[in-house]
């Protein structure tokens, strides 16, 4: 468990971490914005 946590912390503080986290943010934003465009969402 501790090793897994260390590896996770290693990823989020490594050189590719900014790209991974920014990518996650873009996906979250894009997902919610796209949902706002769906007709069912609007007409619900």
């Amino acid at each position, binding site marked *: 468990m501790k090793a897994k946590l260390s590896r996770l912390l290693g990823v989020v503080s490594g050189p590719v971490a*900014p790209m991974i986290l*920014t990518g996650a*943010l*873009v996906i*979250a934003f894009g997902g919610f914005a796209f949902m706002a465009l769906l*007709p069912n969402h609007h*007409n*619900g």
Partner: protein
Amino acid sequence: MGNQYDDSYITFRHAVNLALGKGLVFNSYERVNSASSFLYTLLLAGLYRVGFHDLEAVSAIIGLLSGCVIVVATARLAGALSRSVLLPFIAMLPLCVSGSMTGWAVSGMETTFYAALVILYLVSCRSGMTTTPSLVLLALCLITRPEGIILWISAIAVELSERVSGLRHSGLLKCAAVGVSVVLLQSGLSVWCYGSIVPQPLELKRVALYYHLTFAQSFRYVRDFFVSRFGVISVAGTCFAVVVTLRNAVQCSLSWWNGGPAPSSADPEKRSAERVCLLMSLFVLGSMASYLVGPYSDFGRYMVPLLPVLAVVSVLLFKSASDGIRGLLPEHGRSAVYLIGLLLVVFGCHQALADQRELSAFFGRTARHQEARKSLGMWIEDNVPKGEVILSSDLGAIAYFAMNHDFIDVFGLTSAAPLTAIKQRNWGAFVDELKRRKPSWVADTGFPDGRLQSFEIVGFPQHWFRGLPFRESSYLNLYFSGNQVVQQRTTTDGYVFRLVKIAAAAYEQRELE
């Protein structure tokens, strides 16, 4: 796709008219500038001209792309200034799932496009505030929204503070020259095309009761938007902005008093970061002040562009706080910081998801209204003879889907006559104009009891606008037994959208029926 916020269709109609060579106008019979953003309208007109005719889809794509630019640029700026990877994520995640960011991005309005320009300008300022990209982006912000002036004034204040502190001398004039040139050029164009410096929406917001809040109401509205929806970044960001501004003001005063340069880092990168921090802090405080004294906007639309900037400045406060915690708790500092970070993310996302639910409900209602307005607009386009003028107080989608018809907007957003009459404190002048033109149709929002919004405004304008004398009787009662309801759409929330053929005799009535 489609069914966007009604005001965006006003911009779409201006863009289509511009692309078709009719000018940046809403109606063919008069020149009124009621588009909410000059640059955004130009962009839509250009895209329409090259073949992208579905402006609902085009505007949604621009909003989506602008939103992605905001996310990447904000994370990058916050990461570069704080030298942290996780903190920008903590500050940005609630924004990315919030309804205010995602809903307005696809609303068809210029909100997200403007916010992207602002954050790109701040990113470019890291390499220098007077580089060509910075100055170009500042000019673009200025011609996108009137609020761009706050950014320009903040930039001038930063340059001025550096000059007073004896740190740098070259930027002030360039920055001032860009702003003055853009404002003069835009004002000149506006006077030449429309005969007025102030755009019609700004004129309207000065007199319409809908947009007018007292200072106490504005304070509650601004507080509720920022603290209830984005509490973490708003409180942290505003505190940071106040501290940075005060510290800089003290440093400038001391430097001016002593007659020597202010203490500053020798590292150019650190100095550039300090400059951007001051710029963002001034922009945050200036924007907050403008929201307190400025007009009301639906669901904080005017406040959305500040959110990414608040996220960046809040990250800088989080960074100082986390460094402090690690210093105080050498053994458990790292765990404490992660725990606090986790709590902030959970709390921030909880607020943002509540915002998402509320904005989804709002845009859902908007969408149902738009379906009704669209169908009325399409019916008008297909069935009403081209030369017949249509009365309304609900112009957006109705007018966009009836592109070949002219409208009289009794609310004064897209027609000049009502505001002219209000400025002269003589609503009778507008009533005379109506009697002369005799619009033969009204397409408008109505109420279940049969009343129509535009008839109410024509009759009792003092209930809608400031500055008109109180009058007990109706100025003009257009409810007339000869009127004929031709089309009617009822939405689930009780609004009724009607198209009514107005009997010519209605304009001859003198007494309240």
